[in-house]
């Protein structure tokens, strides 16, 4: 306990906390380039960005929710059912923009249900969104008859496979744009300020006149909408989709946000920081594959990283 209390005020721990993700990123890059000589090739770097971008979009929404001291465990199911909605609509003959909108609307709808239930009933977001995750997964299985949907129509896959100037894949461009937008929203809009206020002290936020219900609902809707959009991009990139296609993303998105320095306890963080967390996860994944670690061991490493990060978060933010 003593160490924790001292840690709260020590400028070194403070600095490490602020820059933890950058330190981790730097260490990982060094280790990775020592372990594998293809790691730092431009192709591999773009690959890492490319494969991280869709999870990154989800993590942005998750970050905003975490800042407001909420979280959404239904994002993985949201991603896959939004992809199913978009590709399903497209295969049924809807024009591309309508198909994309269908995916985003599915995510928004799920966010509305999540947020509505949490706000109206004051239930714990943990049980509600975990229940929704299972419910939506089962619905996705029912809608698709447990079959994979796929396409080889280049119009549909352009969004996920095309490249800006033939270099930067669209998902990466979209991700970076969304990072800028969400960071601006968090820093320079009332809504952004309210999210931090809500996360730091909900009662105080309500007493100072903020409509906490509306802000919370909006945060859930944004998270759902971004997850829906990520589902569309992912489906377009893979040219296929299925129920359960994004399994584990609910935890990966939270890990990415917390790695970047957003607190699990609300009130602290930002989406720009989440980019670093997303990159750390992306490199870790890339590295574990490059050095041929078996899948089981990869899971253990990720679980260990998760625990370490959470422990560190707890340590530096001991209340």
């Amino acid at each position, binding site marked *: 306990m003593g160490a924790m209390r001292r840690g709260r005020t020590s400028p070194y721990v403070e600095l490490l906390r602020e820059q933890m993700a950058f330190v981790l990123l730097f260490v990982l890059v060094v280790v990775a380039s020592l372990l594998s000589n293809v790691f730092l090739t431009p192709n591999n770097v773009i690959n890492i960005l490319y494969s991280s971008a869709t999870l990154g979009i989800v993590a942005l929404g998750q970050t905003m929710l975490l800042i407001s001291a909420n979280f959404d465990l239904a994002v993985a199911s949201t991603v896959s059912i939004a992809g199913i909605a978009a590709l399903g609509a497209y295969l049924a003959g809807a024009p591309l923009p309508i198909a994309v909108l269908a995916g985003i609307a599915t995510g928004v709808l799920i966010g509305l249900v999540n947020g509505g*239930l949490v706000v109206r*009933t004051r239930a714990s977001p943990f049980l509600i969104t975990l*229940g929704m995750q*299972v*419910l939506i997964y*089962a619905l996705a299985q029912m809608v698709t008859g447990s079959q994979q949907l796929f396409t080889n129509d280049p119009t549909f896959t352009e969004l996920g496979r095309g490249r800006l100037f033939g270099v930067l894949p669209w998902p990466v461009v979209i991700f970076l744009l969304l990072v800028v937008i969400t960071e601006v929203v968090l820093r320079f809009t009332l809504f952004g300020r309210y999210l931090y206020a809500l996360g730091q002290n909900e009662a105080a936020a309500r007493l100072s006149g903020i409509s906490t219900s509306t802000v919370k609902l909006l945060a859930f809707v944004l998270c759902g909408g971004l997850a829906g959009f990520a589902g569309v991009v992912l489906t377009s990139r893979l040219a296929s989709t299925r129920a359960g296609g994004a399994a584990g993303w609910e935890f990966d998105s939270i890990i990415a946000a917390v790695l970047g320095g957003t607190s699990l*306890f609300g009130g602290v963080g930002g989406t720009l920081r989440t980019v670093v967390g997303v990159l750390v996860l992306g490199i870790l994944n890339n590295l574990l594959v490059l050095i041929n670690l078996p899948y089981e061991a990869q899971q253990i490493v990720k*679980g260990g990283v*998760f*625990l370490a990060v959470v422990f560190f978060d707890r340590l530096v933010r001991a209340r």
Partner: protein
Amino acid sequence: VPRVWQVVSRQPILIMLAAVVVAFSITRGSVFLSGGNLTNVSRQVAFDGLATVGQTICLIGGGMDISVGAVMAMATALAIGLQPAGGVPLGVAAALIFGLAIGSVNGLLVVVARINPFIATLGTMVAVRGVLLLYTGARPIAGTVPAFAQFGSGVIGFVPVPTAVFVVALGLAWMVMGRTRFGRNVYTVGASVEAARLAGIRTGHVQFATYVICGFTASLAGVLLAARLNAASIHLGSDTGLLTIAGAVMGGTSIFGGRGSVVGGALGILALGLLGNGMDLVGLDTYTQTATRAALIIAVVAIGSFVSSRAARERLQAVWAGR
């Protein structure tokens, strides 16, 4: 009659239990109500039921344990996998010790490291699942001791062995929670850690103990499952975390601690088990069943939170009004 109403209003889960029984008695009565089927259900819910006993105690103490399903699966794997090396005694001992050890780790993470219980046990869940994958190589393992399997499928009179163990454990937990100082301390710590500390309760010890109990019941469930299936697989217990919490909450246990009962939790998991069994008999496919169950859990959690938060508001308003 008023007495009956009192009991029912204290355990709203009884209404749901009655609704499930009535609904499937009408649609599939002859099969659903047969002795053989009810015996089956009692055996099916015994494993998750045992884990729910520990989960309920953990929740009452203000904690939560997401790792129960992983612990159960790992205990099953140890009980089966160590049979060639040291027979049934080694397998069972290792499984139970594993449960106690993971319970202790969870307790330390929550009490000493002060990590949010949901996050801490989520971490151990991921870690235990990883160890399970490594240990089994993702392949199912078959048991080699027929007597162990006979025990798991056996009956005492007409009561299946897992059911009997579940009922005994439930009775013990009911006694401990209602009649002992430890039980009262768990309720007090769950209601307010600060108040409990001021009242001289060693809150850390109490919380730690609830996680150890929870790990133990989960591993005991795993051992019984091993005996029943005479096999282990990595897929066991994948829903157990959510189901045990849902069962406890449906049975009136507060997710924020301080309120609830192990009997309520058992009734909750029984209601979920009867629902699953009835849906099987009606012939619903797996995913329709999953969706129904999830929707039901969301509804129960939402309604429960709504009612209790309104009650809290009304109490607060009463205080402000000077009553």
